């Protein structure tokens, strides 16, 4: 129970143990724990970030989808309009073309008619001459005609 040199020896042992712990035991444990805590905190923050990024992406995709739908309907509308326009145009073209062809045909017909008329006219004159010739040949009377001719010649 006496206080003796053990006191000093134990105090020295205590000091050495404290020094050892301060120097070699505490720092590696502290750094390991703090690093892990930081890693966990970073991981949680990253997860949070990822979650919010996912939300943003979902919203964005929704907006893009809506936009695409709108654009598609616009395009379809435009296409329909354009289609009917083209049909109208085609109708118009067909009508004018038809009219043009019709006019051409009429002109040609007129021409043909005229040409036929001309042909007929020339043939009619030939026929008239031939007819006249035939008539004349039949009607000719050498006595009368020679009398007429002698009269004519007498008049001369």
């Amino acid at each position, binding site marked *: 129970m006496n*206080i*003796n040199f053990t006191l000093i020896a134990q105090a020295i*042992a*205590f000091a050495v*143990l404290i020094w*050892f712990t*301060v120097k070699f035991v505490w720092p590696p444990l502290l*750094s390991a724990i703090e690093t892990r805590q930081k890693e966990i905190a970073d991981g949680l923050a990253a997860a949070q970030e990822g979650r919010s990024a996912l939300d943003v992406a979902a919203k964005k995709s929704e907006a893009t989808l809506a936009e695409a739908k709108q654009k598609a309907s616009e395009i379809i509308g435009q296409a329909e309009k354009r289609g009917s326009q083209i049909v109208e145009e085609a109708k118009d073209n067909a009508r004018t073309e038809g009219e043009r062809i019709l006019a051409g045909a009429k002109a040609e017909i007129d021409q043909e008619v005229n040409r036929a008329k001309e042909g007929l006219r020339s043939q009619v004159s030939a026929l008239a001459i031939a007819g006249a010739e035939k008539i004349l040949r039949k009607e000719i009377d050498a006595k009368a005609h020679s009398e007429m001719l002698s009269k004519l010649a007498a008049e001369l």
Partner: protein
Amino acid sequence: MAIEQAEKALTPSEYITHHLTFNSQPVGDGSFWMLNYDSFIMSVLLGVVVMGLIWWVARGATAGVPSKGQAFVELIFSFVDDQVKNIFHGNRHSFIAPTALTVFLWVLAMNAMDFLPVDVMHHFVYAPLGLEHWRSVPTSDINTTFALALAVWFLMIFFSIKVKGFGGWIHELFYTPFGTKFWVLPLNFLFNLIEYVSKPLSHSLRLFGNMYAGEVIFLLLGMWAATGISGTIFGAILGAGWSIFHILIVALQAFIFMMLTVVYLSMAHESH
């Protein structure tokens, strides 16, 4: 142990005295220059083993997934660190927290030597080694507890002077806690003086008293076991009961010793 008692035919007082005698050898002249080899060797051995184990784990500590050993060490680490964090507001990692860890684990290990059955250890370990007197529990030696408390006391004064300066420390001795009126200055100083004396005494005697009393109760139960068959049975039952209860005391006293160390050292950092 009953047989041992019978063979040696010790009287109860001889038995207790035998178990409470230190292996004390002179290292110089005079009654002070004696070294209790049992206390010193046991405590150094325990310190080396315990802190060595912790160091071994700490050296391979990884920030990734910890091994079971590392998880256990980190559990102790966090327990001590949390306690210190609640009391000491400053850079605890540079000194106070590692000191608290040292105190807690070392005192816990030394206290735990109380679980070694005194007679079995004497009969089978110490006596064959030629050690007539050998006490297993270093903290039931007043020298050990007082050495720790005194070291803390010196650290307390060191940090007081380091934080407040020598003048600040002297100023605090005279101007706190009762005020700065001229006539209360001696009262302040007296109060602080009593505080400075009582701190290491209560710090060391609390631990010493608990561990010493625990040891004595084990000895008394051992003595009862030597009185006959019923004494052996009841002594064994009560010994087991006291051992179980003693687990609480061992851990609690180590915890209290650590907490007081932290409290004293953090008080030294604070200006009043």
